[in-house]
């Protein structure tokens, strides 16, 4: 790789300030972006860093945007795979059946108010556990954008908890139809547990892989 120019300390400080000012990504992104920009600028730039940055603005924005999309998608995929494994893994299948039967029995024999309270408490307890005990410290979220997305899958069961009670028609339908209610409740619980398992695994990976950023 032939260098046309050598980036100066002043230009490097300018680049750091530029990425910070426009809030381009986390510290992890900046490591990769700065290295790429410096190398490309030294090889292909004309020595004017501000001009180079204005030409590369599209790439910088795309770099951050596509990375966040990939992270978000990968957490969702992993959570769905984990949830599917409750039905496909022979080890987990007996637990899945027991949980579903327990939920079904609750929907059959508990009265309306107790049933709704039990449903909300069960979903809320998983949500609270994930947000307070599994999330990574706020200050670390600025260092690594994958932390920002870590607990996001927990919002789906949380929203599922509110959805039936937005309209009295859906709430009444669920209370009358115990099979539908138990399936709905079961899906919310399964997804919560799957998201918690993924959070635990990913948290461990983050601390191993990115210790240079988080320590």
């Amino acid at each position: 790789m032939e260098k046309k120019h050598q980036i100066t300390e002043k230009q490097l400080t300018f680049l750091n300030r530029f990425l910070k000012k426009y809030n381009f990504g986390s510290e992890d992104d900046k490591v990769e972006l700065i290295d790429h920009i410096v190398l490309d600028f030294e090889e292909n730039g004309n020595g004017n860093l501000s001009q180079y940055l204005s030409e590369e603005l599209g790439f910088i924005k795309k770099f951050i945007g596509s990375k966040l999309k990939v992270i978000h998608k990968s957490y969702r995929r992993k959570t769905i795979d984990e949830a599917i494994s409750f039905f496909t893994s022979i080890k987990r299948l007996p637990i899945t059946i027991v949980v579903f039967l327990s939920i079904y029995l609750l929907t059959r024999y508990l009265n309306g108010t107790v049933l709704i309270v039990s449903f909300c408490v069960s979903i809320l307890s998983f949500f609270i556990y994930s947000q307070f005990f599994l999330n990574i410290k706020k200050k670390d979220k600025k260092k690594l954008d994958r932390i920002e997305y870590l607990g996001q899958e927990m919002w789906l069961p949380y929203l599922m908890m509110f959805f039936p009670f937005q309209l009295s028609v859906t709430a009444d339908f669920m209370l009358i139809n115990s099979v539908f209610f138990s399936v709905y409740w079961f899906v919310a619980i399964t997804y919560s547990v799957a998201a918690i398992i993924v959070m635990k695994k990913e948290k461990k990976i983050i601390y191993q892989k990115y210790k240079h950023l988080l320590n």
Partner: protein
Amino acid sequence: MGNQKLYKGSLQTIILKLLAQNDKMYGYEITQKVKELTKGELKITEGALYPALHKLEAEGMLDVEVAKVGNRLRKYYKLTEHGTKETANKLVEMQEFLKTMQHLVNPKFSLD
């Protein structure tokens, strides 16, 4: 320069293959290596390279390592165990694909 669209679906395989040959590489190095190996025929743009690298990393095929180089940090990518296995699979798939294409575009000529 050939039609870049034809290479698009092979980007992940190219990255994995390069990483299998070189212990660890950083983004810019990958673009330059591809340019050098293909004598400028194939240019991987940064807009295509980084999303592919981040996807492979999210899928657990690549590991990252950060090292200080001069006055700044550099992020290196290297294959994980899963990535090494997947590279072999993807290369087999690629060879099968090339054979099929060869049969389609030039039925008289075979790679066998």
